[in-house]
C-alpha cells in the first residue's frame, strides 16, 4: 500500500468514524506516522495543544533508542502494530477468538461468565454498572472526579492541561514518548483538598473496553490533605491480541495528601508490558504503589516515588511472578529531593518453569535531602533449577546525613519445608503453593480482599500446572 492510498483510507475511515462513532470502525493502519497521530487526535476531537503534544512526543519517540539495559525488547516490531482502535470496536471479538487456555483459566478460578467476557475484551458491560452508579453519586457529592481520560480532556480541559505530562514528560523514555503520542483510555482522578475517599476507586467498575487499551494514560491529582486509594487491573488473565502495552501513570500527591495505587496485572503471555509509573509527593504527603505483575512475555516496570517536600513518604511494594518463557524485570525507584523524606521498596519475585525475574531498583538522595531514610528489601523465590533471578540495585547518594538499608535474599523452595508439609498429608503441589503464597503474603495482605483471593487461586493454578 502506498503512503497516499494509506492516507486516503485513513481519512475515509476517520470521516466515517467521526460521524458515526457508535457503529463504524475506526482503526489506524499498521505503523506510526505524523498522519496517524493526527488522525487519532482528530478522531477524538482533541484540542490543539494535545494534538501538538502528541506530535512532539512522536518526534521524541523516533529519536530515542530502546533502553540498553533490562529485558530483551528486540522482538517488538513497531511497524506491525495498530496504534489506535476505536473502543467501540474492541467488542467486535467473539468469545471464540479468545484462546482456549485463557477461557479455561477463567473457569478454573471461578470468574463469573459475564466478567470473563469482559476480561477477554469480548463483553462490554455487566451488572456492576448499578453499583458503579451508586458509588459515582457519592464521589460526585464530595467533588471527586473519576472519569476516563478522554472524557476528562473535554470536561476538565484546564486541569488536564495543567498537569498532563508534568510528572512523566514524553522525553522520559521511549515508551513514555510512545504513549504520549498515541495514548487513549485510562483514568482521570481529582480529589479536592481535605476529601477522604473511603471506598477504593476501582477502574474495574468503570466498565468500558477502552480501559483495557494498549496505551492508556492515567492522571491522579490529590489536593492538600486528601486521600484516595485507586485500584486497577485484576488478577485474572487479561487477553489481549495486541502485543504491546505501554501505559503511563502520573500521580501528584499534594501537601499532607495520601494516595495508594494498587495494580494487579496478568497479561496474556504474548504481551510486552512496558509501563512508566511515577508519583510526585509533596511535603508530608504519602505515596504508595502496590504493583503485582503476573503473565506477559516481558514486563519492565519500576513504579517511582519522587519525594519533593519535607517529610514526604514513599512506598513501593512490587510482586513479580515469572512462569515459563516470561521475564519480569520489575522493582521501584525512590528519588529523595527534600529533607526528612522516607522511602521503602519491597520486592518479592517468584520464578518457576524456567521463568526469569529481575529486581531493578534505584534510590537517589539529592544534596540537601538530609535526615532522609530509605530501606530496600528484595526477596526472590526459585521453584526449580531452570528458573533465574537477578538483582540490579543502584544507589546514588549525594548527601552524607542519610540512613540507607538494603536486604536481599534468594531462596529455593526448601526440601525440608516440602517434606514437613507433605508429612502432614499435603500433596507436593499443595505444599509448594502454600510456600509460595506464604512468601508473597506480605504483599498480598495489602491487596483488597477480592484481589487477594483471586491471586491465591491463580497461583495455586499455576502451581498445579507446573508441578502436577
Amino acid at each position, binding site marked *: 500500500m502506498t503512503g497516499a492510498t494509506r492516507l486516503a483510507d485513513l481519512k475515509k475511515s476517520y470521516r466515517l468514524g467521526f460521524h458515526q462513532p457508535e457503529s463504524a470502525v475506526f482503526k489506524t493502519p499498521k505503523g506510526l506516522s505524523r498522519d496517524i497521530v493526527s488522525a487519532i487526535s482528530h478522531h477524538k476531537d482533541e484540542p490543539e495543544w494535545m494534538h501538538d503534544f502528541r506530535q512532539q512526543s512522536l518526534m521524541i519517540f523516533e529519536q530515542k533508542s530502546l533502553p540498553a539495559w533490562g529485558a530483551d525488547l528486540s522482538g517488538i516490531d513497531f511497524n506491525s502494530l495498530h496504534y489506535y482502535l476505536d473502543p467501540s470496536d474492541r467488542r467486535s471479538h467473539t468469545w471464540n477468538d479468545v484462546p482456549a487456555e485463557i477461557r479455561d483459566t477463567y473457569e478454573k478460578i471461578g470468574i463469573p461468565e459475564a466478567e470473563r467476557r469482559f476480561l477477554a475484551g469480548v463483553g462490554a458491560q455487566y451488572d456492576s454498572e448499578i453499583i458503579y452508579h451508586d458509588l459515582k453519586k457519592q464521589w460526585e457529592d464530595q467533588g471527586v472526579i473519576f472519569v476516563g481520560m478522554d472524557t476528562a480532556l473535554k470536561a476538565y480541559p484546564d486541569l488536564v492541561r495543567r498537569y498532563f505530562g508534568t510528572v512523566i514528560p514524553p522525553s522520559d523514555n521511549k515508551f513514555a514518548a510512545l504513549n504520549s503520542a498515541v495514548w487513549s483510555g485510562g483514568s482521570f482522578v481529582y480529589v479536592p483538598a481535605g476529601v477522604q475517599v473511603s471506598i477504593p476507586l476501582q477502574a474495574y467498575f468503570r466498565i468500558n473496553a477502552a480501559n483495557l487499551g494498549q496505551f492508556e494514560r492515567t492522571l491522579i491529582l490529590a489536593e492538600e490533605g486528601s486521600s484516595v486509594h485507586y485500584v486497577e487491573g485484576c488478577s485474572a488473565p487479561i487477553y489481549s491480541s495486541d502485543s504491546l502495552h505501554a501505559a503511563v501513570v502520573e500521580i501528584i500527591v499534594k501537601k499532607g495528601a495520601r494516595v495508594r495505587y494498587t495494580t494487579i496485572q496478568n497479561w496474556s503471555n504474548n504481551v510486552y508490558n512496558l509501563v512508566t509509573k511515577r508519583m510526585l509527593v509533596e511535603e508530608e504527603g504519602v505515596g504508595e504503589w502496590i504493583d503485582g505483575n503476573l503473565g506477559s512475555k516481558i514486563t519492565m516496570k519500576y513504579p517511582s516515588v519522587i519525594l519533593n517536600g519535607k517529610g514526604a513518604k514513599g512506598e513501593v511494594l512490587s510482586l513479580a511472578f515469572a512462569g515459563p518463557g516470561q521475564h519480569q524485570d520489575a522493582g521501584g525507584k525512590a528519588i529523595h529531593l527534600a529533607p526528612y523524606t522516607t522511602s521503602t521498596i519491597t520486592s518479592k519475585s517468584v520464578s518457576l518453569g524456567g521463568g526469569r525475574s529481575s529486581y531493578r531498583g534505584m534510590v537517589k538522595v539529592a544534596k540537601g535531602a538530609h535526615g532522609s531514610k530509605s530501606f530496600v528489601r528484595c526477596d526472590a523465590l526459585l521453584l526449580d533449577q531452570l528458573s533465574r533471578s537477578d538483582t540490579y540495585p543502584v544507589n546514588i547518594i549525594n548527601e552524607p546525613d542519610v540512613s540507607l538499608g538494603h536486604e536481599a535474599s534468594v531462596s529455593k523452595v*526448601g*526440601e*525440608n*519445608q516440602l*517434606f*514437613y*508439609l*507433605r*508429612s*502432614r*498429608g*499435603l*500433596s*507436593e503441589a*499443595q*505444599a509448594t503453593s*502454600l*510456600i509460595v*503464597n*506464604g*512468601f*508473597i*503474603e*506480605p504483599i498480598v495482605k495489602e491487596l483488597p480482599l477480592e484481589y487477594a483471593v483471586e491471586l491465591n487461586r491463580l497461583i495455586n493454578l499455576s502451581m498445579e500446572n507446573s508441578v502436577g
Partner: protein
Amino acid sequence: MSKSLTIFNLKAETLDGKSILQGISLTVKPGEIHAVMGPNGSGKSTLAQVLLGHPEYRVTGGRILLDGVNITKLPTDQRAKLGLFLGFQYPVEVPGVSFSQFLRLAAKEKLSPLTFRQLISETAKKLAFNSDISSRSLNEGFSGGEKKKSEILQLSVLKPKYAVLDEPDSGLDVDALKYIAETISVLKPFPGLILITHYQRILHYIKPDYVHILVSGRIVKSGRGDLADQIEKTGYEKFTSSK
C-alpha cells in the same frame, strides 16, 4: 489383617551411600507406646525420617507396613494420609503461612473454620501457648519450646493412627515438658506411638509399654518399660560396648 505399624528388617542409607539403618524390625499396635532410645548418632532420627520417606535417604532393604499396606515406596503425603504422623525434632518454619489455615488443609475431618479455630485454641490452651497461635505463621519466629508444642498441637488435631515423635522433649523446661506429656497422654483415640528420646525424662510422664535400645542402626535390646529405668542408672555404655 492385623492392625499395626510393622517395620521389617529396614535398611537405609544417605544419598551419598553412608549406611545408617542396618536392619530394624519393630511392630507397633494401636494404643501401644514404644520408646526408642539410644546414644547420639545411633540412627534414631533417621529412623523417624525414613518412616515418612524423607528424600535425603534411600531404603536399601526391608519393608514398612501400615495396617497391612506396604508404604515403603509411597510418597510422604500418602503415608500421612494413611494415618502416619511425624513429630519433628526440629520443626520447619514456613513464613507467611497461617498456622490455622495450614492445619485445616491438613486435617482429614473438615470442620467449619470457626469450630476449627476453637479446637486449635482449646488445644493451645492445654499446651499453655502464650499467644494466639491461629493467627501466627507456621512455626515462624516460634521459640524452641513453642515449636515443640506446635508439633504436639498438630498431632492432637490431626489424630493419626500411628505417630513417631522425634525427641519431643529436647530443649524443654519442666513445665513445657509436663504440658506436652499431658496432652499426649490424653490423645483420643490413642495412636500407636514411637517415642524417640535420648533421655528418659519424658518417660516419667508417659510410661512406655516397650523400650528399644538403638545403637549404630540396630536395635540391640528390647524390653518392657523398666528397661528405661535401667538405662537411667547405667547409661548406654553397656549396650554400645557389648557390640
